[in-house]
């Protein structure tokens, strides 16, 4: 049953009729069609569904990277679906950590500088920035790779840099769109264990995946189908039906 339908002040994510249409010439692609979803603080949710079901589109709206065509979205009780470009930039900077399938690191910058980036835009001084970035890199086990640039790191290491970067601002919400999509199964497991640990310490996490064993690491699964929520259940309960 999860959190579906329940309205709570505690909710970190609350969407109402969240919709995204893409107009391509005469054709309109209805990628997300009115999603109502509540995610509480401290949850670990996996969003699943077949390719093209609207997972990434939904995630981008949740991550304030994209704005909905229709519907509302409250992040931490704040209505963010109507915010301006720069206000959204600030929300992304302070409240959201995003991990991408393709890592999206700056190739010419060191791991340390990559992790520092969100802090630079938050206006934090260099000494404090360095301290926090090093702390997070050590957390993900890359204390000895801080001076390396992304091309000198393995895929798993790059994704761990990205995770450190997503965590460096102490975000209320950690989002990851297929974070293991470009990694082998062993490395994927390491990343997911990291996520589980973070969640145990109270970090709210939402990931997109289409792999069931990855989704098993989460505590709740939300299945999308053609831009709708098809199923929404807690993992312990759903294990047998999955």
């Amino acid at each position, binding site marked *: 049953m999860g959190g579906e339908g329940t309205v709570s002040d505690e909710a970190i994510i609350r969407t109402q009729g969240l919709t995204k249409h893409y107009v391509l010439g005469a054709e309109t692609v209805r990628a997300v069609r009115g999603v109502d979803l509540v995610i509480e603080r401290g949850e670990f949710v996996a969003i699943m569904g077949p390719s093209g079901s609207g997972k990434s589109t939904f995630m981008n709206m949740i991550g304030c990277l994209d704005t909905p065509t229709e519907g509302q979205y409250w992040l931490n009780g704040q209505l963010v679906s109507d915010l301006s470009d720069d206000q959204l930039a600030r929300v992304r900077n302070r409240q959201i950590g*995003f991990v991408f399938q393709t890592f999206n690191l700056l190739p010419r910058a060191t791991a340390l500088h990559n992790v520092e980036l969100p802090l630079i835009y938050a206006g934090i001084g260099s000494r404090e920035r360095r301290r926090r970035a090093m702390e997070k890199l050590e957390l993900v086990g890359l204390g000895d790779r801080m001076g390396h640039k992304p091309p000198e790191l393995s895929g798993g290491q790059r994704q761990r840099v990205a995770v450190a970067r997503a965590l460096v601002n102490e975000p209320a919400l950690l989002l990851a769109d297929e974070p293991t999509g470009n990694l082998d199964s062993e490395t994927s497991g390491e990343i997911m264990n990291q996520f589980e640990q973070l969640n145990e310490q109270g970090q709210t996490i939402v990931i997109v995946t289409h792999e069931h064993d990855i989704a098993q690491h989460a505590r709740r699964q939300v299945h999308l189908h053609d831009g709708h929520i098809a199923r929404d259940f807690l993992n312990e309960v759903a294990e047998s039906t999955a």
Partner: protein
Amino acid sequence: MLVFEIVMVAMGAVRANILRSVLTTLGIVIGIAAVITMVALGEGAQERVQAEINRMGTTVLTIRPGQQFSMGVSRGDAEMSIEDAIALRVESEGLLTVSPEQSSRLQVAYKRWNSNTQIMGVWPEYFDIYNHQLQAGRFFNQGEVQGRRRVAVLGYNLPETLGDTPPEVLIGETIQLRGIPFEVIGVLAEKGDAAFIRPDDQIFVPQSTAQYRVMGGRDRLGSIYAATETTEQLDMAFAEIDRILRREHRLKAGEDADFNIRNSADLLATFNETNQTFTMLLAGIAGVSLLVGGIGIMNIMLVSVTERTREIGIRKALGATRRAIMTQFLVEALFLCVIGGILGVAAGYGAAEMMTRIAQWDTSVAPGAVGAAIGFSAAVGLFFGMWPARRAALLDPIDALRYE
């Protein structure tokens, strides 16, 4: 975003494409170099003109014959006679120091040396007017003018022309001017050139002697020079000369004057026109190169924005505001242009030096001009960097992240 980080990122981007960056700034370099050269030439010319005016005398008015009119129709060149000079001296009541000038290029001979030299028939006042100094002997006096004496004062270069004879040795010697013997009584100190006047190469004799003994009795003056004590008196002198000569020439009120009165600055103005043409040419080059250079900067910045679309997407996803992105790219454009500006100043300085060495043009690079040129290149950077920076700032984060 902190300013320091923005500058570091911009510098990093320039350094990452160092060859491209240098090539891009070439237009700015040439433009600024042309500006600096132009200003250096202008300043140099200004300084030289001022020096020449000083050398020609700031209080000297030159009166030349003009056009003669009869019922509105030109009847050719008017004449100025010795009577005019006498009238100016007598009637200006001490306001003016006056000397006529009657000159001709003649053959000068001394022993076995020959030279073609400008002979100037003047009054003793002439040396006063132009503040000539002697290095040997004496000037001639009014009595020698009255007596039409055959005495000559030589310009600074003549001892050398006449067989490298020391000035002291020349005093008392006889030289032939068109075969007529003259006694050398003085040699002038060095004066230097002033526009088309080269006193160092001239020989000065009493005007009356020149008129009656050398130039065949014609009393047609080339010029009359009139000097005042102070520059403040120039306006009054101008009016006074006009009044006296009009009466001498029996001109009716309202009739055009048949003479021209010029001060030193007027005389130099025509002389410096050639320089101005060159300055205009440089201004043209500067304008065109700065425009082309600016467009080049805009082009490379657009390329840079496109190439780094993904980077922009990443930065925006992590919380960069429009302003932060805009500043980053503006600083990059600014940085490129200021580098171009500095190189341009160096190149312009070099070009100005070369012009001084090769063409003997006076140049002077003013520190203010250097500051202004670098400031101007920065303005070019801001102007032409604005549009690409805006494009970067307005990119949609999702579209930018998806860009391959």
